[in-house]
């Protein structure tokens, strides 16, 4: 689960971010503690804290002293805009690279996307 894609603390942060974007943890509500995440994902508690703190530093989560960790207002938009930037790197680049290998030109690629979109809807 945590192998081969960046350090474990970043993977945990990405996972929590996914849940915030998906609306599992709505803005203003509490998220599980770093300890809970550690036990749930069977990972080192210090590593889990590091992952949670990454989101605190980004402003997606905030600490209420003595109570716990909460999703900040605007966290969804914040994380979504960040992911839009990553979209190019994570999806567009490999897509175009593979298309080149398979000799699929851009026009054909456009067509494939349109076709797929129609099938989905």
């Amino acid at each position, binding site marked *: *689960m*945590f*192998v*081969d894609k960046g*350090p*474990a*603390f970043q993977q945990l942060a990405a996972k929590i971010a996914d849940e915030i974007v998906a609306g599992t943890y709505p803005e203003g509500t509490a998220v599980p503690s770093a*300890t809970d995440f*550690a*036990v749930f*994902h*069977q*990972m*080192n*508690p*210090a*590593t889990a804290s*590091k992952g949670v703190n990454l989101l605190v530093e980004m402003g997606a989560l905030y600490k209420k002293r003595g109570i716990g960790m909460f999703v900040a207002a605007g966290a969804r938009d914040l994380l979504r805009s960040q992911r839009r930037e990553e979209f190019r790197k994570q999806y567009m680049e490999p897509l175009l690279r593979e298309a080149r290998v398979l000799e699929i030109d851009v026009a054909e690629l456009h067509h494939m996307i349109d076709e797929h979109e129609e099938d989905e809807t």
Partner: protein
Amino acid sequence: MTNAIEIQSATRTFGRTTALDGVSFAVPEGSICGLLGRNGAGKTTIMSIIAGQDRPTSGRVEVLGHRPFENESVLSRISFVRDNQRYPDNYRLGHVLRIAPEFAPNWNADVAAELVEGFRIPTRTDIKKFSRGQLSSVAIVLGLASRAAVTLLDEPYLGLDVTARALFHDMLLRDYTAHPRTVLLSTHLIEESEKLFDRVVVVDRGRVRVDSDVDEARDLAFTLSGTTAAVDELARRHTVLRSHTVSGLKSVTVLGAADDAVRADADGLGARLAPASLQDLVAAFGEEGSEPIEEGARA
């Protein structure tokens, strides 16, 4: 941060065999540290020395600020069950659980009971008839229920089924967060256990090869794979730890962090570059002739 375990230049010889050759590393208080390496690398000898069951021929070992050997006040705060722990012939589980608190002042019977039930350890069978997995289960019960400030787990997974391994992880983390302690765990099941660790120490042939924060260990080596010509060209400027060739294709594990220059070169030559996993790293250091990572690479 204070260190729970400190080993300085420890050497241990048995006759003409050098089991430990100038071993130095420290484990900070509260760390869960993986001790990794091949069979015969020196892992159990290191643990015996930390547990005060053995003394280095030369060098120094301190646990919780004191030398452990014949030091009762420190020994009562250390838990160590060897991977080949023997029990008296007629012992059953009940005997072990009755006597364990004598050696472990923080013994917690609830933790022990939960593990015994979860592992399904037989209570009516002599321990000498236990399977490998059942012996491992007993060792984990002793290790975790002791709640010792320094807990040494030597190959805790041997023979354990997948359910039992998950139970072990779960209990270790739950009890650790409620009662923090320092854990040193040796294992060959690296991929399965690495996310438990915040530090790793890799030993080979009695010497420390890696002593690092687990996140930083990712930058200690990377792998290059592609055509032999491309990989040879790329690897020229790096220290190769391990290489693997099959008809025109080659894969090497090299020392150091991959920088943008080597990424660009690899791209240009059509070779694939990937970070070395902890498992790759341990395998690479376990091969003949690999050199230790020097101070600069240490955390």
